[in-house]
């Protein structure tokens, strides 16, 4: 993270360079003190300016802090993925525009891969859209299909942009929390967090345009079962509702669990957009490539948004991603295939992190998927007295305290909640474990030291 920051500082020099051009032309007159009444923001972004990532990334940017906060792998991506990109950068034509809705070789590779999984033909040009990250797919889906006045069901905790993107579209998010039902004697697992079927049904009405589903789930790590998805599917069909299924962590599922795609259920393909991510699939979050898969009568509207926003995604990255996919598509049953090797590698890290958190006296929720673990930190009884005047939730204060005093950062789970449910989750903090061994070693040192202080 630190190294990336240093490189990004070179972007400042670009800003300085452009300043050279402007300052020679600016006639030195002061900017007008007159306050413009008309030059204000569009109403659609009212109240959406704060962002948890910006706040906590800044805090964690201190190089002495062990960053288990933002979901940023610090493990190296697979060698062949980086090699493909290197080769491709030298190919002239790949430095120019490609097809707006997705580079041909990439959509072909995605179609080939997902046809195996969906067990149906997927038209690469009409049923797949490549976007700037999964974020871009969420944006295109919500802008393309959600109108002002629509209601969209959002399951709490939720990846934070769901609420703000729904609001930016002028729609109303309707929240329903996952509720924990820990089983006595058993380690607390993400599968113990479930939706109450009656409560869920009560959220649907004629104004419900869509439900946003995230499986495997961030931050809890829940992998929805077939039965749980059937409940959601039944309601979608009954109320003629869309399903926006964020499945970016689809490959990161641990022993004893299986990722199930709601779009494969009867009656669901025609009403579901399924979102995937290169960043999460190949540990290359900086490539910012994602995709939406669905029926053409829905995808075409996402394509309209695409052609009126970014228009195309970066060519060399798409070609490299396509090549990387072909390598792994050919060996999907092989343990060497990254789709198989990464979850194995991460399961070990997951178990290590669980162990570390338990050694602190915490009861972490063992995730069935994804690369995060949440834990209730209130038992640590941290001294947050110097922040008592702040009206931030407990977990925000805790993470700031932990970053400052223990040099360990994480993300407060109430950041994934709407205002009304923040109190339900404010004792929980989210730790990211897709980290290299030296980072986990450093975290272990901190935790050992913390334990020594406690005793």
């Amino acid at each position, binding site marked *: 993270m630190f190294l990336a920051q240093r490189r*990004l500082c070179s972007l400042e020099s670009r800003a300085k360079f452009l300043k050279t051009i402007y300052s020679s032309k600016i006639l030195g007159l002061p900017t007008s003190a007159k306050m413009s009444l008309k030059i204000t923001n569009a109403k659609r972004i009212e109240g959406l300016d704060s962002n948890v990532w910006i706040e906590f990334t800044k805090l964690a940017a201190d190089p002495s802090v062990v960053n288990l906060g933002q979901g940023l792998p*610090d493990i190296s991506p697979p060698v062949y993925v980086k090699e493909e990109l290197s080769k491709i*950068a030298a190919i002239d034509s790949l430095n120019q525009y490609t097809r707006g809705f997705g580079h041909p070789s990439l959509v072909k590779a995605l179609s080939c891969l997902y046809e195996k999984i969906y067990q149906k033909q997927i038209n690469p040009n009409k049923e797949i859209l490549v976007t700037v990250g999964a974020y871009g797919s969420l944006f295109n889906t919500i802008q393309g299909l959600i109108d002002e006045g629509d209601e969209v069901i959002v399951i709490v905790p939720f990846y934070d942009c769901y609420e703000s993107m729904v609001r930016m579209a002028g729609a109303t998010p309707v929240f329903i929390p996952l509720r924990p039902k820990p089983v006595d004697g058993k380690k607390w697992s993400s599968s113990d967090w479930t939706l109450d079927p009656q409560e869920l049904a009560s959220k649907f009405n004629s104004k419900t345009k869509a439900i946003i589903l995230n499986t495997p789930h961030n931050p809890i790590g829940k992998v929805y079962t077939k039965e749980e998805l059937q409940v959601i599917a039944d309601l979608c069909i009954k109320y003629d509702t869309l399903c926006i299924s964020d499945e970016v962590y689809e490959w990161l599922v641990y022993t004893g669990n299986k990722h199930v795609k709601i779009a494969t259920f009867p009656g669901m393909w025609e009403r579901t957009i399924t979102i995937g991510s290169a960043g999460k699939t190949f540990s290359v979050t900086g*490539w910012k490539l994602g995709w939406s898969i669905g029926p053409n009568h829905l995808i075409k509207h996402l394509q309209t948004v695409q052609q*009126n926003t970014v228009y195309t995604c970066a060519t060399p*990255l798409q070609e490299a991603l396509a090549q990387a996919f072909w390598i792994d598509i050919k060996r999907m049953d092989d343990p060497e295939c990254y789709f198989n090797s990464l979850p194995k590698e991460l399961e070990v890290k997951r178990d290590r992190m669980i162990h570390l958190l338990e050694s602190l006296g915490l009861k972490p929720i063992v995730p069935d998927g994804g690369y995060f673990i949440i834990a209730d930190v209130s038992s640590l009884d941290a001294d947050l007295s110097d922040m008592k005047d702040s009206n931030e939730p407990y977990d925000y204060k805790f993470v700031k305290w932990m970053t400052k005093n223990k040099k360990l950062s994480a993300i407060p789970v109430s950041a994934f909640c709407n205002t009304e449910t923040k109190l339900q989750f404010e004792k929980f903090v989210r730790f990211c474990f897709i980290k290299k061994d030296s980072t986990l070693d450093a975290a272990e040192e901190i935790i050992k030291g913390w334990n020594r202080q406690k005793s």
Partner: protein
Amino acid sequence: MAKRVQARRLDGIDHDPWVEFVKMASEFDAVNLGQGFPDFPPPDFAVEAFQHALSSDFMLNQYTRAFVIIIEPFFDCYEPMTLMAGGHPVFVTLKPGPTRDGELDSSSNWQLDPTELASKFTSHTKALILNTPNNPVGKVFSKAELELVASLCQQHDVICIADEVYQWLVYDGYQHVSIASLPGMWERTLTIGSAGKTFSATGWKVGWVLGPDSLMKHLRTVHQNSIYHCPTQGQVAVAQSFEHEQLHFGQPSSYFAQFPQAMQRTRDQMICSLQSVGLKPVVPQGSYFFMTDISDFKSKMPDLPGDVDEPYDRRFIKWMIKTKGLVAIPVSTFYSVPHRKIFDHYVRFCFVKDESTLQAMDEKLQKWKKELRP
């Protein structure tokens, strides 16, 4: 689904002009002088910067953060983007002045009527979109012309969205002036630039916007609620390419000097070649493009095949692709719908092309010329 799925904000903006012509270009194996991308590589230092960005630090594979006045002809996305935001586009037209006999028309000859422009501003005008150098005309707005726009923006408290992606591609000694540098304009202007056009790397998809924090903060809010980040390596490569250029800035070795010089030569070569078949180019002061007047063709072959109500220039392009093997873009695409029938006698050529493309073009033009002889 039984109920209407798509959001109302998409109404009327789903059509895309590029898809059709790009498809035809490949179907008819035509020489593509249509879509604006260089068919030659970025400069070595830029490619090296990208290579370097890929191999240096593997952590670079991770994340690093009312009424709108539109001047016609305009880059086609301005109108649908305005509509998607619920805005109302108001059009004002660049009009060509008279040309002397025997002289080629120039983009500097295409001007806004000051009275007409002023009449478009009302108390509901939120922004004006300015594109200089202009696509498709190639016009480089003069300081005086910009001062007129600036004074109206200030008078009516309007934001100026200045699309300056072609700022380094200016020819014949003309100067690019950024309206944001005029008095009173910095606080109300957003200036947009492009790595793709600056470094001939359109596929990198890195662009930027400069402006006062009071406006930029709102763009950041949209950014964090749409794509959130741009690809890391592309940004690092652009940064390093700029660092390289900073060392050469103002010198003959600068890419920003060499590239426009080379493109000026290509422009002149293409203008000369196209005239040989009766096309009448409008010499551009800047950008990747020039328009050519096809009125002679319109009077000689008015009934080219096409859909009912299809503007003449579109039908001309389809005919040219199929029968002459050359692709260009009909300029009526860059006009508001009501004006398409009026401005249907120009087509746009992209001259930022490799020597081999120009040779291929010349071959097609030779054939065309032969067919013209009685």
